[in-house]
């Protein structure tokens, strides 16, 4: 890829990353439907999942357009295999308990909201438009997940312990958000997207504030699992998600409503 990465290939890859993040996390969150601890959270999580699937349609739709091979958002979502996915490792991690799900959501929402804010100024108007629409939804996702993380972290002894465990477990997955590669370099050059590393300070400030409210201890390790957004090394979990998500199109190719 590095040899002959032109701007169009890079843009395609970049859009897959955005769309695969919301697709995989949207699917993960939808797994809670009918299983949440309380009815209100069940509905709220389903709303969040639907928002993300809606954003996926925009990102992957545009990705297919940019690729120019006639692939639709559905084709990209349901007919690719693990190695073609470009989502962050964070979003494919299992739901765990409710606290772990909300911690994962918060760590992603914080990055997502900052990223969309920057993308609203993209030189590519199509990207700026999608980002503007999505940013309103994501502002609410962030408000909700941040409140829940703070509430459970600063809650009972048990909820505090569970949230600290979730944070320790998921922390090594946030580093990947800020690692740039040749795709990102190409996007920066074209003014399409920011350098991923440039989001880190704002992210640390936002997350630090909420984790302090939550009385949680931020792990001091900078170790980062990588390989999701490049597709080089997804975790074992992604394949399991895809067997669930894609089985219908695999079993009945071309099936429609």
């Amino acid at each position, binding site marked *: 890829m590095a040899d002959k990465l032109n701007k169009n290939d890079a843009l395609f890859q970049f859009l897959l990353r955005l769309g695969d993040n919301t697709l995989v996390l949207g699917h993960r969150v939808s797994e809670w439907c009918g299983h949440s601890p*309380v*009815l*209100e959270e069940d*509905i*709220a999580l389903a*709303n969040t999942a639907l928002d993300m699937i809606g954003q996926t349609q925009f990102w992957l739709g545009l990705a297919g357009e940019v690729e120019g091979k006639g692939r639709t958002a559905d084709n990209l979502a349901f007919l690719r295999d693990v190695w073609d996915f470009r989502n962050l490792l964070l979003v494919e991690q299992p739901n765990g308990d409710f606290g772990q799900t909300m911690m994962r959501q918060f760590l992603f929402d914080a990055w997502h909201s900052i990223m969309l804010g920057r993308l609203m100024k993209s030189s590519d108007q199509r990207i700026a438009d999608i980002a503007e629409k999505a940013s309103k939804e994501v502002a*609410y996702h962030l*408000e*909700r997940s941040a*409140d829940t993380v703070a*509430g459970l972290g600063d809650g009972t002894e048990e909820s505090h312990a569970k949230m600290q465990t979730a944070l320790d477990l998921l922390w090594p997955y946030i580093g990947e958000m800020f690692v740039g590669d040749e795709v990102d370099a190409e996007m920066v050059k074209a003014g399409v997207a920011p350098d991923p590393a440039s989001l880190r300070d704002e992210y640390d400030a936002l997350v630090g504030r909420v984790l302090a409210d939550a009385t949680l201890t931020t792990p001091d390790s900078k170790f980062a699992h990588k390989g999701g957004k490049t597709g080089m090394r997804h975790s074992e979990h992604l394949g399991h998600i895809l067997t669930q998500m894609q089985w219908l199109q695999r079993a009945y190719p071309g099936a429609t409503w």
Partner: protein
Amino acid sequence: MKNEWPLWEVFIRGQHGMSHRHVGSLHAPDAEMAIKNARDVYTRRNEGVSIWVVEAAHIAASSPSDKGPLYEPSNSKVYRHPTFFDIPEDVGAM
């Protein structure tokens, strides 16, 4: 039951100029979360422009067994109902 969140009654204003209307109830740990939950449970189809929540325990309600003394006396006083006036159409819903 002591682990249950308190019950909140939810009122939503459908559009500017209208009153808030009771739409239902939900559980939430505090007022802020009650508003968030109301947003997710009751406004996901674009129903509202404003949300009120009030903890159900704080609502003082009349007792159903007082129905007779409270309401029946007005039944027989037809002159209290303004049904003898023609309302101009321009006035709209009253």
